[in-house]
């Protein structure tokens, strides 16, 4: 029964899940073998792989289950990311209720996705949550630290709710526009490429990394890792795009080259914020990765870019 249902999914998506499973198995094998070959260099790989299995299982199941499950899952993921952000960022004692209001923006934004209203989604966070938090905070009456705090609230909502919400909205693309692998295929491809880029940069960096890009922000990032990662990801993107997206060759080349750069900057932006806040990881939610924000950092920048590039080059809906 479950097998039949899985076989009804588009071929590319089934192949994608098969490939992902293969990568997970290879990664887990590497996590067993590499620490024995080079002791001390790979010890974070085993817990990292365990978390990868968990992430792929949950997100994969929601993708296959359809847009309803996926929207609910991403609403929760946005909430967890926002909670991590607001826990670490400085807030004032008076701001507890403003924080509650900011959490409410998760419900409102994902409600717009649920009713498939793109116009509402576009304005809720940048305009109405912006105005609403400012009004509430002014009403609370404490002025010292006002601008800094209202800015922090807004930064958190934009990256955790608005940017990530684009992923859930992509699931509402009409099937007729994406006959290749359906909306789930579009989303699968975005998440896969973004995370693949992180892994490719990590692996190239571990293998060849010499010259640090930004020692003050992210000492583990090297030019070798970044460029190796970009090129590998671009090649994978261009090769697989025809199976998952309606993109033609040149647009896919353009997105393939730019998407990993945005992913890289999402990653180091979050690193800069973590340094500013004085933490290494945003929480202990995912052993080997850190918190939800640590895992989502690159996706927060790639998701809107991928969404808009698809909208410009291929999709009529958005």
């Amino acid at each position, binding site marked *: 029964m479950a097998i039949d249902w899985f076989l009804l999914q588009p071929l590319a998506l089934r192949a994608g899940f098969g490939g992902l499973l293969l990568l997970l198995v290879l990664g887990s094998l590497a996590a067993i073998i590499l620490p024995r070959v080079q002791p001390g260099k790979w010890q974070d790989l085993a817990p990292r792989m365990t978390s990868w299995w968990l992430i792929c299982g949950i997100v994969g199941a929601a993708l296959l289950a359809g847009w309803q499950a996926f929207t609910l899952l991403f609403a*929760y993921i946005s909430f*967890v990311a926002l*909670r*991590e952000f*607001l*826990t*670490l*960022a*400085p*807030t*004032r*004692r008076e701001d*507890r*209720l403003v*924080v*509650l209001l900011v*959490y409410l923006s998760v419900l409102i934004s994902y409600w717009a996705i649920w009713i498939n209203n793109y116009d509402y989604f576009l304005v809720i966070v940048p305009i109405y949550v912006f105005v609403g938090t400012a009004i509430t905070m002014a009403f609370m009456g404490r002025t010292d*630290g006002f601008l800094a705090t209202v800015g922090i609230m807004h930064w958190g909502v934009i990256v955790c709710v608005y940017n990530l919400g684009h992923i859930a909205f992509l699931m509402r693309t009409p099937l007729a526009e994406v006959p290749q692998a359906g909306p789930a295929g579009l989303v699968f491809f975005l998440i896969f490429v973004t995370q693949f880029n992180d892994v490719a940069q990590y692996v190239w960096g571990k293998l060849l990394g010499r010259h640090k890009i930004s020692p003050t922000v992210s000492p583990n990032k090297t030019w070798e890792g970044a460029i190796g990662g970009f090129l590998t990801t671009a090649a994978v993107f261009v090769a697989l795009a025809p199976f998952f997206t309606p993109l033609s060759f040149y647009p896919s080349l353009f997105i393939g080259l730019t998407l990993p750069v945005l992913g890289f900057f999402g990653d180091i932006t979050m690193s800069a914020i973590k340094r500013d*806040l*004085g*933490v290494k990881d945003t*929480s*202990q*939610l995912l052993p080997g990765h850190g918190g939800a924000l640590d895992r989502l950092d690159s996706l927060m920048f790639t998701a809107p870019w991928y969404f808009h590039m698809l909208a410009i080059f291929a999709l009529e809906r958005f």
Partner: protein
Amino acid sequence: MLQLFRRLLLVGLVKPIAKLIIGVDVRGRRNLPIAGPAIIAANHNSHIDTLLLICLFPSASLRHVRPVAAADHFLQSPLSSWFSQKIVGILPIDRTGGAKRDVLAGCREALERDEILLLFPEGTRGEAEEMGNFKSGIARLAEQFPDTPIVPVYLQGAGRVLPRGARIPVPFTCSAIIGKPFRWSGDRRSFMQSLKSTIEALSSAAPPLRWL
């Protein structure tokens, strides 16, 4: 029957709410005893603290876990009294009684039944996210049960979720840092000093708290 209901409620409702909505980061889980007798000593900022501590335990050991809580606060109304004692499983302690009454008798009986006491040595929630002075009742208990492990726990964040006086809880990720168990040192003063300094030292493993 009630015990089963209590466990279902804690495992099926209370723990998922605490973990999914509030969010708890645990460090040093291996230091936590899953069988009694033991005394868990934590700093206290909020009613949420008890919830966080209960969440640390696997469901099988929950029936041995007894939070020690103020009788004057939790036994005020019949409903609160029933809920606190039967569901949360608190051991009421009389904060008003003078020297003539033995306020620790309940705790001693619980330890003799091999239960796990959750104790807040500050004795009150105090200001949100600030640690107050420790009361010495825990030293008297430790002296009478010198073989019982005392497990220091530093809790962070509950004072933001639900500070004293607030009615609506607001989710913030909380941290629980569990230190290595230790035993009665032979002297009350040094015992209290080392307990407090241990919990303060554990706080350095928690993320920096920016609560302006």
